[in-house]
């Protein structure tokens, strides 16, 4: 098999690139998903004062800046010895995080996933997009827009602004939630709960109606990893690390965030700028894992909000209590989390602690800290070292999409094996590859969004490494 070199342009553009490698008999040997990963970020922040981190890290990504903001803030809490936040500070951050989860999952479901689910994977690309959905289901699209908008308003009220928010600071937050802000959010929250339940119903019905398709579409066993609360419940903001294997056996539980390196290592492969994390105890071949909504539903013991917990129980029943291994079940899991997030928002908006004035705490200064959060796409790890002059000297980030790297490659390989016919990339193959990748909601946006980019490119190589065919789709260069 020929070793491929990634074209420089791949690093620049915010698009995905898939290489399919055939063997001597023109069968799919392996498919590789190349995703832009931020490079040079460590260099960018080295030497900067640590208190800038929660704001500066938002430069990484325009899609989930709140997740980076909070993960960095959690690490900096420990740097200043302020990890035991005041009730107001922790609840403000949680509200911010649930707002982010709600808007991100809503955007993914309505804007990216619903066209696939409503029209089928093989539908004409001219129709299989959000505008196609809009033509047939205008109310659905309107709800998606307004759910996303609501989540952004929660972020603005808690982070201070939608872009480059400053709400979380080392040891706490810099604002509480005013009565006016609370009342404005309360005015629409019941509507949001109702719409989230409708979206959940749609995702569940789709999965159950198409279970046979889902069981043959990028389905494979894996390990699963994420944070859980002390009682094992789903906790998107904080908790110990739990991992389960394909049978649902707990591999380790309630591991202190600061010790993530005891259990996780990262493998470098020559063809990818993105690393491949794995569980040390199992090694790179067997230790890779999945994160994100599906993984979180698979590892948690319960959910502490009633609507989402009822949905989780049904979700678990489908796979007989074992981890659900279906790539397409990510959509259902994501909508369960959407309901959970808005239930938590509703609860918090009725909590008077949000109007508290004790916002910041501190304690014994440390020089190294880890902050981990469950971002919309999965577990996000921030690790920093800070010198005595308050300057950052080391930074290691493992983002959610990196944690799912091996899983996405396997999903693409599985789909390519099933849908590649001959030695030509067809529109059908490209569509199915897209759907498989999209289920993981990878963030391809750590790069830029400048006009003139191409979101997806697929290349087919023979056993000798010769390019047989190339196809690209998405926004044409303008």
């Amino acid at each position, binding site marked *: 098999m020929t070793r491929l070199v990634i074209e420089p342009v791949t690093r620049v553009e915010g698009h995905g690139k898939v290489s399919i490698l055939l063997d001597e008999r023109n069968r799919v040997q392996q498919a590789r998903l190349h995703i832009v990963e931020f490079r*040079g970020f460590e260099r960018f922040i080295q030497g900067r004062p640590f208190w800038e981190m929660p704001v500066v890290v938002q430069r990484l990504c325009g899609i989930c800046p709140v997740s980076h903001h909070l993960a960095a803030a959690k690490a900096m809490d420990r740097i200043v010895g302020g990890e035991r936040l005041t009730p107001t500070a922790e609840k403000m951050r949680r509200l911010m995080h649930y707002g982010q989860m709600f808007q991100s999952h809503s955007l993914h479901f*309505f804007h990216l996933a619903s066209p696939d689910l409503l029209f089928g994977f093989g539908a004409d690309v001219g129709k299989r997009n959000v*505008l196609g959905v809009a033509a047939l289901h205008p109310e659905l699209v309107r709800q998606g827009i307004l759910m*996303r908008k609501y989540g952004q308003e929660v972020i603005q009220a808690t982070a201070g602004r*939608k872009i480059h928010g400053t709400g979380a600071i080392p040891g706490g937050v810099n604002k509480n939630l005013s009565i006016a802000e609370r009342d404005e959010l309360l005015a629409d929250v019941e509507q949001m709960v109702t719409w989230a339940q409708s979206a959940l119903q749609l995702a569940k019905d789709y999965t159950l109606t198409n279970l046979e398709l889902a069981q043959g579409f990028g389905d494979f066993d894996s390990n699963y990893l994420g944070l859980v609360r002390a009682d094992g419940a789903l906790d998107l903001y904080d908790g110990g690390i739990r991992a389960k294997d394909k049978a649902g056996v707990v591999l380790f539980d309630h591991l202190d965030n600061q010790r993530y390196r005891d259990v996780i290592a990262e493998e470098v492969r020559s063809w990818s700028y993105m690393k491949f994390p794995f569980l040390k105890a199992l090694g790179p071949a067997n230790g890779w894992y999945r994160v994100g909504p599906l993984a979180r539903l698979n590892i948690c013991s319960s959910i502490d909000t009633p609507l989402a917990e009822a949905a989780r129980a049904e979700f678990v029943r489908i796979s007989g209590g074992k981890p659900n291994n279906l790539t397409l079940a990510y959509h259902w899991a994501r909508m369960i989390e959407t309901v959970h997030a808005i239930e938590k928002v509703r609860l918090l908006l009725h909590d008077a602690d949000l109007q508290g004035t004790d916002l910041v705490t501190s304690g014994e200064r440390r020089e190294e800290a880890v902050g981990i959060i469950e971002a919309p796409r999965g577990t996000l790890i921030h690790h920093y070292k800070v010198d005595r002059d308050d300057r950052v000297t080391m930074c290691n980030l493992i983002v959610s999409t990196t944690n799912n790297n091996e899983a996405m490659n396997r999903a693409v390989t599985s789909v390519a094996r099933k849908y590649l016919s001959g030695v030509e990339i067809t529109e059908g193959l490209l569509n199915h590859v*897209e759907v498989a990748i*999209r289920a993981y909601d990878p963030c391809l946006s750590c790069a830029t969004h*400048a006009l003139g980019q191409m979101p997806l490119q697929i290349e087919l190589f023979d056993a000798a490494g010769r390019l047989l065919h190339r196809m690209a789709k*998405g926004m044409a260069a*303008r």
Partner: protein
Amino acid sequence: MTTTRILVIGFGNPGRLDDGLGPRLAEAVAAAALPGVSVIVDYSLQVEHAAAVAEHDLVVLADAAVAGAAPFTWHELPPDAVDAAAFSTHVVSPAGLMALAGEHLGARPRAFVLAMRGYEFDEFGERLSPGAADNLAAALAFLLPALAAGRLAEPADGVVRT
């Protein structure tokens, strides 16, 4: 006399060098505090911006361009332009945004795309390249008087302003 309501959306990642052209332009427009001109700064165009678009009479969508003419191009989007972003970009295109506003929020104002040529995108940094900084200055010199006058128009001689 009713003031023309103009919305300027400058988008891009200000932490990725020249990708910050859109936000820089929007911040400069906001600083000018022109009557009737609203400004949104964001990383990318998102579906919820359609709600703001529908509340204005004219819209300017300002972004960096990885290719094309310098210092910038300026063109009006055709009123029926449709371009739904696909794959996992999580963003909408200018035409997709306008289509959403028109079809679901009841108003599709005239929209102009201001694409400022950038040159450096492939590392983190909050500076603009010298060429991009010149292009930003040229774009502002063109746009601010037009906004102040409340009149935006397609140049008769094509899309490129130099």
